[in-house]
């Protein structure tokens, strides 16, 4: 277990220092100063970050299109209460990631690899790379869809996404990266603004809190809805990201309470903004989802413009650009952390590219590969975007199982191990996610090979 004692008692030799240590200690000195002087709000400001970024990063392009699509096709009923329930599930998972990162000062990938063996570590990294690549393609698609509203093409989407990655990586400091992405992530609130602009019936939103009406349609459609909506709230990259980012930020067991505030704030904001996208999409319900059918969500801004005015369309388009951009940054970062951790080399924003070349190369490389895919003429981009969440849901249970195992590992966590109640909820979440993902996968496969009809 990590020591909660101060590092260096006078007279005790320190380990060799690296530039990463110096950068992190600079951030920690501000935290300690704020804590000593009881500057509560400043302390909170210093310690928030990984939780909000994980949650708002998951309010990405495909997720917001999925919420808006749910609203356009099924209305508000069921989804208004279902989205907060899913983010409550996400909080349970992400709180564990934050806690393990703060106590062990290590990322998820390296802990799984070292604690349970290379096979499990590399399997996890493989899952992550696959889902991240697919999701990153979907993020570039999201930016492209938003830019198309302003008559800009794929090339601009690629340049914008890659320029953002390069800009945020250029500082050589975790703090700088985190604050830039945090600033961008707050624009996820554009979806709430879009919801206000469509002038929704507030009584209808409140009335939908009783989970009714339940979405109609075939069993497979229902499973797809569940799997894609779950995949819009909890995914493997969030697990890798929040644990590694908490460690990279330098969080310690004394920061766990603030880490919980950070994660809870992220979950609440993400749920509100997600419901914003749902409400905006529901404005199209009375028009039979016009504008989205046949174009699989790409026409949302245009459809909203026709139904609720130019302002709503513009705000929604800007929201899609923001959602895609933030997710590109956080998902690329999670890939980079996993790559560095599994290879066993430096993996920190506080290291320079020369010292953490695997980390920086993976960060930029995975974004570059996804960007290249969207430039391929005729690539099935929208199908990729719609299936990204489902694939993440299917692969998620394994990551969650290891997360619960790590959070229960007394050798690593000491007194910070999970409580029984956390384990019970965590296991229920794994079972629910696994059941939904597997049911959709199996049912769709049987339909595809005509074993059922």
């Amino acid at each position, binding site marked *: 277990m990590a020591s909660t004692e*101060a590092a*260096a008692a006078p007279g005790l030799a320190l*380990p060799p220092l*690296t*530039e990463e240590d110096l950068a992190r*200690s600079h951030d920690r000195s501000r*935290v300690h100063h704020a804590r000593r002087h009881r500057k509560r709000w400043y302390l909170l400001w210093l310690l928030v970050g990984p939780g909000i970024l994980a949650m708002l990063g998951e309010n990405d392009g495909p997720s917001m299109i999925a919420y808006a699509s749910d609203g356009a096709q099924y209305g508000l009923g069921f989804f208004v209460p279902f989205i907060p329930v899913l983010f409550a599930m996400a909080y349970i998972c992400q709180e564990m990631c934050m806690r393990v990162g703060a106590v062990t000062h290590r990322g998820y990938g390296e802990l799984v690899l070292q604690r349970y063996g290379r096979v499990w570590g590399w399997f996890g990294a493989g899952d992550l790379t696959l889902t991240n690549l697919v999701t990153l393609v979907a993020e570039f698609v999201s930016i492209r869809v938003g830019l198309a509203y302003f008559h800009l093409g794929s090339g601009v989407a690629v340049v914008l996404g890659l320029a953002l990655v390069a800009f945020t990586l250029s500082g050589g400091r975790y703090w700088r990266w985190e604050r830039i992405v945090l600033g961008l992530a707050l624009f996820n609130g554009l979806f709430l603004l879009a919801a206000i602009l469509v002038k929704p019936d507030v009584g209808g939103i409140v009335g939908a809190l009783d989970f009714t009406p339940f979405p109609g349609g075939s069993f497979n459609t229902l499973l797809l809805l569940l799997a894609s909506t779950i995949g819009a709230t909890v995914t493997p990259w969030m697990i890798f990201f929040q644990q590694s980012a908490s460690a990279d930020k330098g969080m310690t067991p004394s920061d766990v309470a603030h880490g919980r505030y950070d994660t809870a704030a992220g979950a609440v904001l993400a749920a509100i903004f997600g419901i914003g996208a749902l409400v905006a999409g529901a404005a199209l319900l009375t028009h039979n989802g016009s504008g989205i059918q046949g174009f699989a969500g790409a026409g949302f801004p245009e459809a909203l413009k026709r139904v609720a005015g130019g302002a709503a369309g513009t705000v929604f388009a800007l929201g899609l650009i923001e959602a895609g951009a933030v997710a590109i940054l956080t998902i690329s970062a999670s890939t980079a952390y996993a790559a560095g951790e599994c290879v066993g080399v430096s993996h920190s924003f506080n290291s320079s590219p020369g010292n953490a070349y695997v980390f920086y190369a993976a960060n930029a490389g995975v974004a570059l590969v996804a960007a290249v895919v969207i430039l391929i003429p005729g690539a099935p981009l929208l199908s990729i975007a719609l299936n990204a969440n489902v694939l993440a849901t299917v692969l998620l249970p394994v990551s969650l199982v290891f997360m619960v195992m790590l959070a229960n590992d007394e050798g690593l966590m000491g007194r910070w191990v999970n409580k029984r109640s956390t384990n019970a909820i965590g296991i229920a979440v794994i079972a629910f996610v696994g059941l939904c993902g597997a049911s959709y996968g199996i049912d769709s*496969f049987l339909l595809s090979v005509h074993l059922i009809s």
Partner: protein
Amino acid sequence: MKAPAPTIKAHRDPLVGETPPAPHERFDDEMVMDLERDQFVAETSRPVARASLSARATSALWALRVFVVLVSLMVIYTFVHQLR
């Protein structure tokens, strides 16, 4: 990269040097005091001990892994099938 900065001991040992450390070195020393010992890169670079999983736990993990791979293949097949 190992920075050339000296250790805390070198600075805090009263027998070492009567000249005060250079301002930037002093600054780094005070900053480093804010890190917990197990936060240093040198400490986190050491691998944690391998956990011993029971045969049942290992079997369950493999069963879950095989199941997830199979379902993923089904999802990918369905995705490709829908493209045709």
